[in-house]
């Protein structure tokens, strides 16, 4: 098991961290990589900011079934006309 991550691997771990799915050891490796790599530091910062913004925005989405319901309603009503 190697300890140093490449940039694309670091980005992958960073993405996972945004969803709390990175393993502890990977997070440690990411921290080490970020110490050495400025580009990845930038990416990591932006990525974290994006996560924060999405949380702050409190987005809501309709589920697939709700969307299907709307579609059905549209179809029905346009047939009635």
């Amino acid at each position, binding site marked *: 098991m190697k300890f140093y991550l490449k940039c694309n691997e670091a980005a992958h771990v960073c993405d996972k961290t945004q969803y709390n799915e990175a393993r502890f050891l990977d997070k440690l490796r990411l921290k080490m990589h970020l110490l050495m790599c400025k580009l990845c530091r930038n990416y990591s910062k932006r990525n974290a900011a994006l996560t924060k913004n999405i949380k702050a*925005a409190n987005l809501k989405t309709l589920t697939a079934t709700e969307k299907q319901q709307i579609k059905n309603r549209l179809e029905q009503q346009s047939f009635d006309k």
Partner: protein
Amino acid sequence: MEILNPEIWVDKYADYLYNYTIVRVNDPIVAQDLISETFLAGLKSKDNFKGEATERTWLISILKRKIIDHYRKINSKKGKAEVHISYKNEDSEGDWLEENAADPFDKTAEDQMENTELGLAILACLDKLPEKQATIFKLKTVANYDTEAICKEYNITPSNLWVIIHRARKTLAECLEKNWFN
């Protein structure tokens, strides 16, 4: 001139319209009704669409009317427009006015308004992604689906999923930096 594409309206704009509506009517069922009515009205009057605005802007302008109509309807019922303020229960005592004043340290209306606008900006940026990317990103990030569940649904491997998420996040971050922070 833009051409209307009603078949994909629901997939493409339902979430945007929903987020726009939900903060204004504060009731998921009513919001969904209003959205259906909006799409329907759009279908009926699609010949009037001149292509001066984007589809989304045009639909929002219809939706605005629908929301206003909704409030007119519920306010026209007699007595509903009155506001009654009284003690929450019999036993509570103290300064009535103080108890009913808003907490100044609570989230302000302005904060919330800004967050709503941020949400719409994010959704508008999502429009720029390929459809599949946007859907998967929304499932993962907003609806908080498990990685496995999404992989099963779309028949992809986890590493496929993370590539999609990575691309989506990169585009989104760039788009937001351009449209929101400046």
